[in-house]
């Protein structure tokens, strides 16, 4: 195996292809919603992107909470009629989701790809690359994604539909979602990068959305996947993760206790991959099925990506050695090391 050909490289290629397809794919799949692939994609592909080829599932869910379920509750209609559209959306989501499971986050999502690109830039600029967040921060951040899902995707839109909040609270997550700004900017559209002074609600949400976008740009240079950790899509995935065909499987050995390389490699800082010695299915709620833990596991078949019962990628000592070597080489090449080399060469010439 060549030093540079590995699962991470394959994933990067898939991510870039998916980014191009979902951000600019409207040119292929067609301009309109009805030409889109699912209308309920399990990744943050934004409807505000004029050229996008699909919509993230959180968009219709917010609309349905606001315009269907909330309306039915307010008017006292048939509750089933109010829930049915959401069930159809979740059904469509599941049809796609079972195929790749949480890999939609790690392999497909445009926002995930963007953060990884920023991380790559940060690493090449020689900025400190934090391998992992402190444990206490990881645990503190984990509930935020559930708050985002329950309050911003379901709660506030439902209250809006019932009539308890103003109409601008009907899609609160979309208003702060970085995908809205990122994907529209990627197509040369600045209309979403604004401060909206129409009223207090739009002002607060637009400022929050813009601030969050800036925060993610800077944080992604040093912290791995900062937005993914609080993303409501991750929480929605977590609910259905047992149904997905693709899974992360662990065949724990006593060596696992002492190693911990898998947890260090994890971009989401899931320490349980290392410490959990009981579970076989270790597709934890924060896992994005990126496969880095499998790549950096030095023991044969201890960690595996399995598609139903078929292992598609397994850890092995040989792969680990090659992968570690290529990672070291890759990380060594950055602006600071280049500058040091340049300076030492110049000094040598002077002497």
């Amino acid at each position: 195996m060549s030093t540079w050909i590995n699962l991470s490289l394959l994933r990067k290629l898939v991510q870039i292809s998916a980014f191009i397809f979902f951000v600019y794919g409207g040119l292929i799949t067609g301009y309109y919603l009805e030409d889109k692939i699912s209308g309920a994609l399990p990744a943050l592909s934004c409807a505000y992107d004029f050229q996008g080829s699909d919509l993230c599932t959180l968009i219709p869910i917010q609309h349905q909470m606001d315009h269907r379920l909330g309306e039915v509750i307010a008017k006292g209609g048939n509750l089933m009629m109010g829930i049915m559209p959401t069930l159809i959306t979740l059904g469509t989501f599941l049809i796609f989701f079972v195929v790749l499971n949480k890999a939609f986050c790690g392999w497909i999502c445009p926002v995930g790809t963007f953060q990884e690109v920023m991380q790559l830039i940060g690493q090449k600029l020689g900025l400190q690359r934090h391998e992992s967040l402190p444990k206490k921060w990881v645990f503190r951040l984990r509930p935020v994604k559930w708050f985002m899902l329950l309050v911003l995707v379901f709660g506030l839109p439902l209250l809006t539909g019932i009539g308890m909040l103003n109409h601008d609270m009907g899609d609160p997550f979309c208003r702060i979602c970085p995908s809205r700004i990122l994907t529209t900017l990627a197509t040369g559209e600045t209309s979403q990068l604004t401060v909206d002074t129409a009223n207090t609600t739009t002002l607060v949400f637009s400022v929050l959305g813009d601030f969050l976008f800036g925060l993610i740009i800077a944080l992604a240079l040093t912290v791995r996947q900062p937005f993914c950790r609080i993303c409501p899509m991750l929480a929605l995935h977590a609910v259905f993760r047992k149904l997905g065909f693709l899974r992360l499987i662990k065949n724990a050995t006593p060596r696992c206790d002492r190693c911990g390389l898998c947890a260090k490699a994890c971009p989401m800082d899931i320490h349980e991959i290392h410490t959990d010695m009981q579970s076989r299915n270790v597709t934890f709620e924060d896992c994005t099925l990126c496969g880095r833990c499998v790549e950096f596991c030095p023991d044969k078949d201890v960690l595996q990506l399995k598609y139903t019962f078929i292992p598609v990628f397994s850890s092995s000592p040989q792969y680990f050695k090659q992968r570690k070597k290529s990672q070291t080489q890759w990380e060594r090449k950055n602006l600071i090391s280049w500058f040091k080399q340049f300076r030492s060469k110049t000094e040598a010439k002077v002497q």
Partner: protein
Amino acid sequence: MQRQRLRSFIAICLLPLSAVAASTDGSEKKPIEQPAHDHRGAKQITLENGEGATITLWKPDLSTQTLNLEHGGITIPKTGLDNYHAVVAEKDWGNHKEAVIRYEYMFGRPSKQSPSKLTAVEKTDFEIVPDPIPREHYRYHSLQTWGFLVRLHGKPLSNLELILQTTHGSQQTVISDQYGRVEFQIPDDFPNLVAGERDKRSAQFTISSRYREGDIAYQTQLNADYRINPTHWQSTQLGLWVVGIGILAGGYLGRTKKIKEKRT
């Protein structure tokens, strides 16, 4: 006699009832707004000078339904289908054929059809079609540039004059290119705009054209709503400032973490 009747027909115009209310007084600040959740039922539009016209409703699946003019108005029935529908009013005077088209978004169960099919199909001999038609989260707004195609018997007509007129009195004339396509920048002509304040008024624009083929004279119109461009109350410059503050905050958080790590 025929010329008189023709002239009266030229004034044919399809307008939604709310737009009629808004367009009666251009200086009025707030239009009559439709209730936020009352968009799933039937819609009513007015057809001025439409006596004797054949009115056809084209559904997203390209099936058609004949509609009747009653007291100067047309009721677009609830079709149960989501997506754009086209209302086509035609008058055939033998050697004069006239048509007016309006695309209305109706709500219902997913039609699973692309609006591009509706715009692509020949609905009348001589027609102007949006290219493209605004999709979800988009509408025609002032200051935006949108494309339109002009076709005769489904084939593009080049080098033809198309006129855009708004209910606020603006007018533009553009010549179609070799593909029968034109682009108009929708005028920002709403009166009494207050900077920084959201304004939900809408108005109408009409794109019209004429063409003569042999003995037959054709006339066509496309009617649509347009709204005030949100840039009047949304600031990209402020947005950039806030993003900048976010970047500084993110940089500071990263830096703080770095110091803490060095200490430990």
